[in-house]
């Protein structure tokens, strides 16, 4: 990992999307043991995965991991904490005046 250079990796992954009444969730699992570090970006390849209501969809896909540069990783480590507030229910509204 360079100080300023980004590296790109491919990783096979399994995406599970549950669009059910009793569980609304979506998770990505990397099947080659790839680990995500602060500042990394992940994009699952292929068309949007849509689960109709009431279904769980699980698909094997390829993911691209854009590794953050060392500097970016450091920056995210230093500043990421302040985004923690977004776990609150009242923090997610995008609009300030509705």
């Amino acid at each position: 990992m360079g100080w300023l250079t980004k590296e790109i990796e491919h990783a096979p992954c399994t995406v599970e999307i549950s669009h059910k009444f009793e569980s609304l969730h979506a998770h990505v699992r990397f099947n080659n043991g790839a680990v995500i570090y602060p500042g990394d970006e992940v994009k699952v390849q292929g068309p949007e995965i849509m689960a109709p209501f009431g279904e769980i969809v699980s698909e094997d896909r390829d993911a691209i991991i854009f590794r953050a540069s060392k500097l970016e990783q450091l920056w995210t480590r230093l500043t990421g904490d302040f985004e923690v507030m977004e776990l609150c229910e009242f923090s997610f509204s995008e609009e300030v005046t509705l």
Partner: protein
Amino acid sequence: MNMQPKHSADATTVEEGLAIQEEQSKFDSKAATDVAMQNTLLTPRFYTTDFDELDAIDVSSVREDWDKLIDQMESDPNKGHFKKNEDWDHVDWDNMEPKLKKEFIDFLISSCTAEFSGCVLYKEMKRRGSNSDITQLFQLMARDEARHAGFINDALREAGVAVNLGFLTQKKKYTYFRPKFIYYATYLSEKIGYARYITIFRHLEANPQHRFHPIFKWFEEWCNDEFSHGEAFALLMKTDPKLTSGVNVWWIKFFLTAVYATMYVRDHQRPAFHEALGVDPDWYAHEVFTKTSALTKQIFPITLDIENPRWQAGLVKLQKANADLARAKQDSGLGAMLRQVSAQARAATAFAGLFFIPAKRHQVPASTRMEPAY
């Protein structure tokens, strides 16, 4: 639909649940495609943390309380609760006042996103951790959050809003939280979540004419889940006294101030929603802060002095600066830029003013566990 399948919220095993879901999906996927819906892309956050540090937690000092709490969560008292029954009254979405409808849908979407993000975070911690106490806890919490998200999603569908989970195929960045910040923030978000929901629930119990949507009837059990999640984080923090002493007390104060202030500002952006509930947002904020402060005494050595006149005055200033900032951001030109800078400076000053109000110190009880009492 001639046969109503058993609801999977009642399933006792995974296999049973899956079988019911499979049966149900035959109806649901058809229903979903029949109705053209407004599409809302969920945009949860993705987090990473120091998983080794998380694994190093040793709950043996609070083992008795811990096991009791986990057993209670494992027994899943709210299984089957989060589904519609005869108490789910008809909602007249078409005749709902447009401003209220907009604010209420925004409320539902932001609640759904928060539950969903909680689920993503907890699941990630479960998956990458190897300490069985910790992974078990996070698994149980992820279950609850996904269940809540599903329930809100159902209410949204009724309003003609379809939640889109397609965000995974968009590029998403992983941010980083130190474990201790996750404890402070999630602990507080669960406890303030409890205080918020129970305050609305009790208010509507006393003033049912203001209950404009049936989802509020489910708030009591919902917030009891939030309460137990908060308990778990309180116990986690109890295992390491350093987390609630020394310089960390300043972090706790920072999180308390930030969470309270964010809530105040956000709630004041939904005037029609609060009016429909018959709730004055200033009264509501004070009530929620009072309850949250009483609850957080279980583990935090300080509470904010919300009775200090500077507190309310500071919140009002912050709210005003934020509204000005939003307006300035919509305009362009040098004038708008200057107004933006000025509003940002005022917001920062107001926040600092709130932060530096001396906190109240108190003794933290030896035993952490509490039961929901409001």
